[in-house]
């Protein structure tokens, strides 16, 4: 049995009947209306609880929760820069390890959590994340993926999906929007041989919370990639975040799965997958795409999903 399976063998998950009441991330922050990212982070924090140190990358979740002298954080929280949340959490974890061992403190049960957006994770912070995963620090990393640099005004990242319109991948006479395929970060995390990797979505809160909780229970690094709808950047209705998040799973665009000790497990198999057009429809960032482009995207989504099923042994 691998170390993650061993740590999770008696895992009792959350359910709608036993939701934790704790709110480490308090309401009253400054997120946009309908923000799916802060909802996901709230769910994650409820699952983690209060015995945690949180390291934040620069980004929406940092800026909306910490305008001095206010803070939305009821747990210890540090923000340093854009690209280094994984390195900062490495230092915090090492400090606790050394100080516990040297009996300077007696706090052996603290969880160490770092989070960043897709830009902070897939682009500028990928090196720091890779280093921290490789070194094997005992921490949880959450990538809150809203598929572009939303905090600076919706510029493309390497996690922006093919064809999406952003302020630096605008469609035009010579462009159909984002010209590259979305970087597969969970796969990169898996390649580090870490004990736990998962994808999650705030449209499936119990699943999300269970995955974050599991991530905190396994010894060593754990990575959870969280789909984080952004109505402002995706140009969908303010009340459509969760609907879009659900469609992303039902259209196979963002499948939910876990990789425990290197083994893939599908969390949710849509019984009757819908075409990708159902997912594109509410989002104006895909509105310019032509029929043949949509068909091309559908074909790659199908291939990637089938590849995932294969990995899951389905």
């Amino acid at each position, binding site marked *: 049995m691998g170390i993650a399976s061993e740590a999770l063998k008696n895992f009792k998950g959350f359910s709608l009947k036993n939701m934790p009441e704790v709110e480490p991330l308090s309401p009253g922050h400054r997120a946009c209306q309908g923000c799916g990212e802060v909802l996901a982070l709230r769910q994650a924090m409820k699952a983690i609880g209060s015995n945690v140190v949180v390291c934040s990358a620069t980004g929406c979740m940092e800026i909306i929760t910490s305008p001095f002298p206010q803070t939305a954080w009821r*747990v*210890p929280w540090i923000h340093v820069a854009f690209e280094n949340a994984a390195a900062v959490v490495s230092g*915090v974890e*090492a*400090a606790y390890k050394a100080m516990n061992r040297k009996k300077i403190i007696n706090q052996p049960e603290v969880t160490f959590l770092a989070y960043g957006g897709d830009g902070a994770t897939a682009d500028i912070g990928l090196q720091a994340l890779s280093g921290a995963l490789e070194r094997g620090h005992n921490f949880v990393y959450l990538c809150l993926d809203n598929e572009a640099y939303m905090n600076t005004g919706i510029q493309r990242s390497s996690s922006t999906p093919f064809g999406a319109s952003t302020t630096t991948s605008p469609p035009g006479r010579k462009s159909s929007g984002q010209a590259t395929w979305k970087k597969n970060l969970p796969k990169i995390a898996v390649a580090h041989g870490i004990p736990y990797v998962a994808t999650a979505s705030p449209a499936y809160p119990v699943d999300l919370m269970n995955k974050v909780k599991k991530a905190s229970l396994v010894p060593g690094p754990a990575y959870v990639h969280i789909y984080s709808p952004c109505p402002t950047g995706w140009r969908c209705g303010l009340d459509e975040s969760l609907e879009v998040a659900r469609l992303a799973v039902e259209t196979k665009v963002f499948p939910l799965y876990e990789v425990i000790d290197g083994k893939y497990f599908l969390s949710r198999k849509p019984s009757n997958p819908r075409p990708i057009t159902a997912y594109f429809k509410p989002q104006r960032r895909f509105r310019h795409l032509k029929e043949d482009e949509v068909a091309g995207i559908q074909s790659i989504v199908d291939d990637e999903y089938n590849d995932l099923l294969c990995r899951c042994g389905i």
Partner: protein
Amino acid sequence: MSRRVGIEVSLAVAEAVGLCDVDVIAAYPITPQTHIVEHLSELVAEGHLDAEFIPVESEHSAMSACVGSSAAGARTFTSTSSQGYALMSEICYIASTLRLPIVMAVANRAISAPISIWNDHADLMYARDAGWIQLVSENGQEAVDLTFMAFRIAEDKRVSLPVQVNLDGFIMSHVIEPIFLPDAQEVKQFLPPFEPLLRLDPEKPITIGPVGMPDVYTEARKAHDEILKASKPIIGEVFDEFEKQFGRRYKIIETYKIEDAETVIVAMGSLSQTAATAIDAMRQRGVKVGMASIRLFRPFPAAELVEAIGKAKNLVLLDRATVFAGGEISGPVALEVKSALFDRGLSPKTANFLVGIGGRDVTGQNFEEMVERVVTAQKGDLPPYEFINVRE
């Protein structure tokens, strides 16, 4: 009991860090800093030092991990040089305003291009505006002693700022010197356990590193500036305490044969040792020359410096780094010195020389030429700076 050992300076600095019983070291290898972190890894691997050694994947992550570690309340050390400093510099600025008492040894090295592993003060100058305390050593014993003092200064609750200990790459870092190393008990007596002002603790949650809107940003920067200003007398106090316990005297501005000197050389780092030898030779010939050596570069000790050099007729101001300012103003150290003099209504004859750049040797002969130049030139005829010992 202190023991006197023949030891490479880098290893001695690592021994000093070990004697300070650090909790976390996060470091990335770069020449000429490598021997410091190699020896620290050995101390940890052998169980001589109970610490976490984080072998990070870059200097940027080295300083980032140090910030996390120090904010969690651990005594934290790192070391770098040159390009490594350049890469981590973004986070160095943050570490200081967050008031994190990290100690960093910088084995001073030139900055690319062309790539050069050899010594100058380009990294020291690169770091001057980052809000750290910058101590400069002239020899191995000083590098070791300043390491002990750096932790004591950094962790003083009235300071709580990161401190750099600068030592010249190769010229000091790779040289074997006879060095007094105190024992752990003596160091413990000098350096009390680290008690952070605040720490990341679930039992007492705090938010560190918030957004500073325009209504608070200026105040945050001013507060940092005030605390750096207030650190100078405390640095002096720590020098005094060190002398009381270990008998070695440190001053913010060190002087050599300056009392009757008409010409004063203002130097920093290991150059001072060569200068002292040259001064002895010139004194034998009746030249009234002396030296002031800058031990503390940030906060800049203008008052102490002017007190030391204010009576001199001629000043030789040395910069061990190139400056790209268009040629009409002086090098960085000379600018500071001139500004300090100007503010006090003093205008001696000054010559600024760029020396020892990228590992170029500076000889006793060079010092004699520089003194000759400032003595014989007419005031007003000297350029803002000149390169010394350079092929045309």
